[in-house]
């Protein structure tokens, strides 16, 4: 009788241990699944911000390619893309972790209070080489850092 009780106790402990193992495996599998999904989504978001910024600047340049209208200038926000269109000037610059666009009166410096946020960004670098403008957009930090760089030509 007593030995039967012992066998039953050992059996129940083994069952409990197996249950714990089962629960642990379930937790591991769910963790792996969520981890994989988070990684894909996070990477996509980071890269997309840099790509959106690059595409936006590329499109702006192509839509305003007139003689002596587009240049890269230094403002209070660093490298700034300047698009002159008569009485107004459009400035595109990086500040406070985002890309901004500001429409100001000609020869008036850009202000962040009057600017519209385009997208979150880690940084931007613009170089004017005469015929072309080199654009470099960065987003994220550390291992998740993404850089999108390219060139837009000025035909005019």
């Amino acid at each position, binding site marked *: 009788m007593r030995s039967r009780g012992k066998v039953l*106790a050992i059996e*129940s402990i083994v*069952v*409990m241990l*197996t249950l714990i193992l089962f629960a642990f495996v379930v937790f591991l599998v769910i963790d792996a699944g969520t981890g994989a999904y988070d990684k894909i989504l996070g*990477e*996509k978001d980071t890269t997309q911000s840099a790509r959106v910024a690059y595409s936006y600047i590329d499109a702006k340049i192509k839509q305003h390619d007139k003689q002596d209208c587009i240049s890269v200038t230094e403002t209070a926000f660093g490298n700034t893309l300047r698009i002159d269109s008569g009485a107004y000037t459009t400035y595109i610059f990086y500040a406070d972790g985002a890309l901004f666009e500001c429409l100001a009166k000609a020869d008036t410096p850009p202000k962040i209070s009057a600017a519209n946020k385009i997208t979150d960004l880690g940084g931007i670098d613009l170089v004017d080489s005469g015929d*072309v403008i080199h654009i470099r957009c960065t987003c994220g930090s550390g291992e998740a850092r993404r850089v999108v760089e390219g*060139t837009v030509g000025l035909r005019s």
Partner: protein
Amino acid sequence: MIIHAIRNTLRQGSRNEKGFTLVEVIISIAALGIICAVLLRLFVLAGATNNQANDVQDAQIAVTSAVEVLAASDTVYDALDALGISHSDSITAESFVCPKDGYNLIIDLAARGDYPGTLYDISVSAQADDKDLAAISTSTYYKEQTHD
């Protein structure tokens, strides 16, 4: 459920069989393992698709940038110099390969027509493992460059 099973099995002489059995849990773990191995492929496929999409978009930007340099320069020679590609003094129809990280940028140039300047048909593609990641075909006219 678990407390109920423990109470029942510890009861002396109890024949209550409610609760998890060892066999049941072992079979469940085995089934879990087999099904996970199959489902894992879904995640691997998602990761591979995402990586390929990123490679294609990066290659697209590289190809577009090369075309922009070619279109904006005064002569094809200036453009090739800006891209860091060595060339001859006269280009009528030529192909250039420019290695980049992870792929090769292939630039095909062919002059055509009879114009005061030179009209080139341009084809730029990014290739990796003999596959085209991105490609653009266009034409550019170099007014400053007389037709050779």
